[in-house]
C-alpha cells in the first residue's frame, strides 16, 4: 500500500458528514450564537471566567458557554438564566435505595453523588458534589439512616477552592473509620490533605490520623486491606512530601505511608493510572491504565501481594481489547464475589473472546470465565461500566449504558450468576451516570449524576 492510498483510505473513513450537520441558523447553533453575542462583552479576554469553570465541560452540554455567560453578564437575561438552569439540572445527583420487595428510598442532591458505603446498620454514607441532599444542607458528605432520613447529628464537611460541584470524594469503611479521599482541601475546617479518616459514629477526624496526601491528579478510589488503606491515583501525588505514582498505601490508623509497600506501577500516557481497587485474602487487585507492574506486562489489571505490594505473577489475565476504538481499552471497576473477579470498563473483548465492557476472571489465575452480558449504549456504541458491587449471587452494575441484553436499563442493572439480566430489577432511573454503588445484603444504593428532569 502506498502512502497516498493510506491517506485516501483514512479520508474515506471520515466519521462525520459535515454537510449533514445542523446549519448555523438552526435552533441549536443559533441559540449558542445568541447566548454568546447577547451576553459577553467584546472586550479583551476575561480568561478567569472560562478558566474557573472549564471543568464543567466534563459532563454537560452547553455548560461552558452558559457558565461563562452567567458570570459575565448582568442578571435578568432570559437566555442566560435558562442555560444556567440546564447546568444545575445536569449537575444534580440522583439515586435510590432499592430492595427486593421495594420500597424505594429516593436520593436527590444538588450535585453528583460519587460514592456510597453501607454503614452496617441499614443506612449509608454518601459523598459527592452536593451541598444539599434530600432537602438537608450537607457539605459533600452525608449519613443516610435506615429509614431514609438524613442523620441530623452527623455533619462533617468538605470544602475546596473548586466550585462546589467539583468537590467530591470516594469512601471506604472499616473498623469504625470512614475513609474519605477526594478533591477537597479542608475537612471539618482543617487542612488535612486529600485523604482523611473520620470517626464513622461522630464524623470527627480520627484523633490519631496524621496522613498528609497532596494529590496532583484525581484520587480515584480507596480500599482497605489488612488494616491498610490503598488509595488509587489518577497520576501522581505527594505523600508526606515524597512523590508517588498510581498507588499510595497508608497505615489505616495513622495515615502514615507504609514505607515497605511501594507498588511499582507507572501511568500509561495521560490516562488515569489506577481506577479501581478491591482486596481479599492477602491480595489486592488493581485496574486502570498501566502497562506493567514490577517490570512484568500486566496492561490494566493486576494482582498485588497485600503485604509487600509486589506483583502476584500467577494472576495473568488476558489483555483487554477495544476493536474500532481510537484509544486503548480501560478497566474502571472491580468486584469480587463467588470465586470470581468481575471487571468492568470500556472494552469489546479480552483474550480473543467478545465481552462488552464487563467480564469475569478466575481470581487465582486471571483466566477468562464464561460469564457475559451484552451491555451497550442507546446508539449501539460502546458502553462504560463505572461501578460494580456484588452480593450473594448477584452482580450490580452501574455506569454509562442504555441497555443490557437488548433490554432498556438506564445506567443500572442487576445480573445473575451467568450474566443473565435479572428481570425483576428495573428501578425507574433518570440517572445519566451511576457513579456510586453499594450493597448490604439484598439492598443496594445506586446513585450518580442525573440530568433528565
Amino acid at each position, binding site marked *: 500500500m502506498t502512502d497516498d492510498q493510506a491517506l485516501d483510505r483514512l479520508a474515506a473513513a471520515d466519521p462525520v458528514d459535515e454537510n449533514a450537520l445542523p446549519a448555523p441558523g438552526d435552533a441549536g447553533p443559533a441559540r449558542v450564537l445568541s447566548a454568546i453575542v447577547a451576553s459577553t462583552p467584546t472586550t479583551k479576554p476575561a480568561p478567569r471566567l472560562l478558566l474557573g469553570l*472549564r471543568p464543567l465541560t466534563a459532563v454537560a452540554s452547553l455548560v461552558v458557554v452558559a457558565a461563562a455567560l452567567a458570570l459575565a453578564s448582568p442578571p435578568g437575561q432570559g437566555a442566560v438564566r435558562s442555560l444556567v438552569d440546564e447546568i444545575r439540572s445536569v449537575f444534580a445527583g440522583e439515586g435510590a435505595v432499592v430492595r427486593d420487595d421495594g420500597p424505594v428510598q429516593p436520593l436527590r442532591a444538588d450535585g453528583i453523588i460519587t460514592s456510597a458505603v453501607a454503614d452496617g446498620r441499614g443506612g449509608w454514607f454518601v459523598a459527592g458534589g452536593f451541598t444539599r441532599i434530600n432537602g438537608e444542607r450537607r457539605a459533600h458528605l452525608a449519613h443516610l439512616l435506615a429509614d431514609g432520613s438524613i442523620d441530623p447529628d452527623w455533619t462533617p464537611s468538605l470544602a475546596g477552592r473548586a466550585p462546589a460541584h467539583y468537590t467530591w470524594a470516594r469512601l471506604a469503611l472499616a473498623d469504625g473509620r470512614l475513609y474519605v479521599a477526594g478533591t477537597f482541601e479542608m475537612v471539618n475546617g482543617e487542612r488535612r490533605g486529600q485523604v482523611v479518616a473520620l470517626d464513622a459514629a461522630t464524623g470527627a477526624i480520627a484523633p490519631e490520623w496524621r496522613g498528609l496526601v497532596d494529590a496532583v491528579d484525581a484520587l480515584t478510589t480507596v480500599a482497605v486491606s489488612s488494616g491498610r488503606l490503598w488509595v488509587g491515583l489518577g497520576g501522581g501525588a505527594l505523600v508526606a512530601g515524597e512523590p508517588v505514582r498510581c498507588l499510595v498505601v497508608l497505615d489505616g490508623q495513622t495515615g502514615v505511608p507504609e514505607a515497605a509497600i511501594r507498588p511499582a506501577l507507572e501511568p500509561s500516557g495521560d490516562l488515569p493510572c489506577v481506577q479501581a481497587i478491591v482486596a481479599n485474602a492477602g491480595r489486592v487487585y488493581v485496574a486502570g491504565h498501566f502497562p506493567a507492574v514490577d517490570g512484568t506486562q500486566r496492561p490494566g489489571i493486576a494482582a498485588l501481594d497485600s503485604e509487600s505490594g509486589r506483583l502476584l505473577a500467577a494472576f495473568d489475565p488476558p489483555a483487554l481489547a477495544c*476493536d474500532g476504538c481510537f484509544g486503548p481499552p480501560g478497566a474502571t471497576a472491580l468486584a469480587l464475589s463467588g470465586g470470581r473477579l468481575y471487571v468492568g470498563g470500556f472494552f469489546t473483548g479480552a483474550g480473543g473472546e467478545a465481552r462488552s465492557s464487563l467480564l469475569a476472571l478466575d481470581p487465582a489465575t486471571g483466566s477468562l470465565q464464561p460469564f457475559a452480558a451484552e451491555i451497550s449504549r442507546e446508539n449501539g456504541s460502546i458502553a462504560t461500566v463505572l461501578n460494580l458491587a456484588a452480593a450473594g449471587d448477584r452482580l450490580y452494575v452501574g455506569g454509562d449504558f442504555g441497555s443490557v441484553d437488548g433490554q432498556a436499563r438506564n445506567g443500572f442493572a442487576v445480573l445473575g450468576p451467568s450474566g443473565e439480566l435479572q428481570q425483576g430489577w428495573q428501578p425507574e432511573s433518570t440517572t445519566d451516570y451511576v457513579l456510586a454503588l453499594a450493597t448490604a445484603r439484598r439492598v443496594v444504593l445506586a446513585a450518580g449524576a442525573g440530568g433528565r428532569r
Partner: protein
Amino acid sequence: MESVDSSVGSEDELRFRRLFADHYRAVLAYALRRCAQRADAEDVAAESFAVAWRRVADTPADPDRERAWLLAIAARVLANQRRSRRRLLGLLERLQGEPPQLALAADESAGTRERHAEVFRALRRLPSRDRELLCLVAWEQLTIGQVGEVLGCTPNAASIRLHRARRRLASELAKAQGTSGHEEIRPRSQGEAP
C-alpha cells in the same frame, strides 16, 4: 457561505456572526471526529466560539486562515477538556478511547464498517501527534500551511511530519492486511534497477 443578518451589531459582532455562519459546521465536525459523545463535541464547538468571540480582534485578516485559526482554538479547548476531565473527574474518565459514534453508523455495509474499523485500528497504533496531523489533512482537508497553523509549527515542519505519518499509517495498514508494505520506498538491493 451562510447569510448573515447585518442589520444589527458592532463591527466585531458582525465579524463574529460571519465567522460563526461560515465555520460552525467545520468546528463542530472537527470536535465530533474527536469526541466520544455528541454533547461533548457541542461543548467544544460552543467553547471554541466563545473563545473566538473574546478574541475576535485577533481574527486573521486572510479569510483562508480563519478555519485553521478556529480549529487551533478548538484543539486547545479539546485538550483542556480532556485534562479537566482527567484531573477532576477521574472516576468519569471513560471515553477517551471511544470511536466517534458516527463511525459506527448503521447504514454502512458490514464490509465498509470493517474497512473503516481497520483504518481506525491502524490509526490508533500511531502516536497521537501523527493521528492528529493525518486527520487534519484527510478529514478537515486542511492545506499543509493550515495544518502548521493548527499544530503550531512551520509549514515545512508540518510537511516533514506529514510525510512520516503517512508512511507509518501505510505501514500499519499493510501489516493489518498481511503485506509488507512500503515496497515503493524500500532500499534497493544490489543490482536492482533504479
